[in-house]
């Protein structure tokens, strides 16, 4: 994973609450054994009608939303199944950040581990972004170091992130590598507990 300090790009609005990971990537696509190539199946049942015909009504299929890298959604995004195929699909499609008033726990972790930024903003702030984003395509700028989301029209909001994850993402560190440096401690724990 490569580290980053800021992100910028087109934001697309998915004005739904409780979007579960079954919707983000339906189960028929979980049989693959790779991490890549899931982007074309993202939101499959919403994005396509029967027999794979694109549903033109769906936000991701609108011409003005092509090339979006930031997804804005409503509360409890990513609930349900722990499938990491959900962030893999978002990433493969091109999303680098998701903004919502709240996320499900496992999904949030899964995003962080794949370098997708799950940004929690206040409900009012998300509402504002959703309203604006529905009017016309919107460019957002995200500063991870400063923990800020801004745009050229004066929108400005701050988001929380733990120092731990900020450091990991900025540096693009591999968590396993870091843990393996603590190998002695793990062995000591195993010995002390007869494991």
């Amino acid at each position, binding site marked *: 994973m490569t580290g980053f300090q800021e992100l910028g790009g087109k934001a697309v609005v998915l004005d739904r609450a409780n979007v579960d990971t079954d919707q983000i990537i339906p189960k028929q696509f979980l049989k693959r054994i790779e991490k890549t190539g899931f982007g074309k199946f993202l939101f499959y049942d919403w994005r396509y009608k029967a027999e794979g015909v694109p549903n033109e009504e769906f936000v991701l299929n609108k011409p003005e939303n092509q090339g979006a890298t930031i997804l804005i959604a409503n509360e409890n995004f990513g609930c349900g199944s722990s499938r990491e195929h959900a962030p893999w699909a978002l990433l493969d499609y091109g999303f680098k950040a998701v903004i919502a008033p709240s996320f499900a726990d496992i999904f949030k972790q899964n995003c962080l581990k794949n370098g997708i930024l799950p940004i929690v903003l206040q409900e009012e702030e998300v509402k504002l972004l959703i309203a604006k984003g529905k009017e016309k395509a919107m460019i957002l700028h995200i500063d991870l170091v400063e923990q800020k989301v801004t745009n050229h029209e004066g929108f400005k909001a701050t988001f929380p992130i733990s120092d731990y994850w900020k450091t990991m993402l900025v540096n693009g560190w591999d968590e396993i590598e870091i843990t393996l440096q603590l190998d002695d401690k*793990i062995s000591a724990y195993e010995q002390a507990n007869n494991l």
Partner: protein
Amino acid sequence: MGKSIVDKIWERHIVHKEAGKPDLLYIDLHLVHEVTSPQAFSGLRMKNRKVRRPDKTFATMDHNVPTINRQQIDDQVALNQMTTLEKNCREFGIELAGIDSPEQGIVHVIGPELGLTQPGKTIVCGDSHTSTHGAFGALAFGIGTSEVEHVLATQTLWQSKPKTMKLEINGVLANGVTAKDVILYVLANYGIKFGTGYVIEYCGDVIKNLSMEERMTICNMSIEGGARAGLVSPDETTFSYLRGRKHVPKGEIFDQYVENWKSLASDEDAEYDKVIEIDGSDIAPMVSWGTNPSMTAKVDGSIPTEAECATELEKESLARALAYMGLKEGQKIQDIKIQHVFIGSCTNSRIEDIRAAAEMVKGKQVHPGVRALVVPGSQFVKRTAEEEGLNRIFEEAGFEWRDAGCSMCLSMNADVVPSGEHCASTSNRNFEGRQGAGARTHLVSPQMAAAAALNGHFVDIRNLNKVEVL
């Protein structure tokens, strides 16, 4: 101040602690299945890493195995996933209950059954229903594939301590009200994110009186309320379930284990970040009518109306759910007709569930036009049921009797509900498309599912002697 069971398990598992970081926790048991593991093993291979403790890792295949004609697997992509797991287990030295193993089954059914699940353990699996194992007083939660790789390589995980919630259910459950109804009632009243950021400890008289199978049903659906883990302090019920199981020590060592397990139970004066109290006597048999598990009503109730919605968002969600489900606001639950019945999944496929359902269908017939399936949670459950003659009860009533697997819980294999049709299902998720594109799922207890199979619609099993059962 006293400690809760979560505090105690947490403290005992800290390998490394450092300000500004999550704690590094030791993982006692890592369960692995075919769908969420292949990329983790590839990751290890790419970096030339080993599995640190294959002896604390156990694998099975459950999600996309066929539940019929197992020798002949047509789905090549699914087959590839299964053989990949076999290969990975062989290469990394992990014990596997493969498709032909007498121990094969849904990962959350076989863990407890084999005695791998024990009080005080930290247990993880690349599956959100790992919370099931919390019924034994273990801290058990679902993880993503990156975390699976991390646990394989290090036998640890970086975790921030979650908040704790005490969910106390007192009183007595009415006849016909099951553990499944308890958890559906909780979700109907508190929604699908009340548990986000928490570990839920279930307690109170109702929980104390439940069997291990019933406790598992409740802990299983903690994640449906947003909680990564849910647990119950271990007690005599827990110990007697575990005694004599394959991976549980015997004799004197068992007694020593029990002493240690007893010390894990939450102290009387333990403090929690949140407390919820529920009156068990208010719970009725529950039926979900919508597209998430909180969209659930009592069987003698009806679907809410738009006028009852508190917010715009709720109104929209109701409209969207009703459009998907092909139902109307205010419609009576008992008027919903069903075409499919699925008795199975890690929520309700244990021997007690199968027995309870068999009791309902004994000597009766499945309603014409209903297709009904019983999929035992493990091959062990299947054999036990067959020894008791339960398979014959089901088959004579017109049910199909299958091999163990996740089956129609998520319909990754060939067990699918056709678009637009309604299924009374003992599983845990009624999301859009969960049981097949356009499929309409209603979550219920095994008894309610069985009664629905006989009647072609939902019936209040509390009044069964008054209902004309076909």
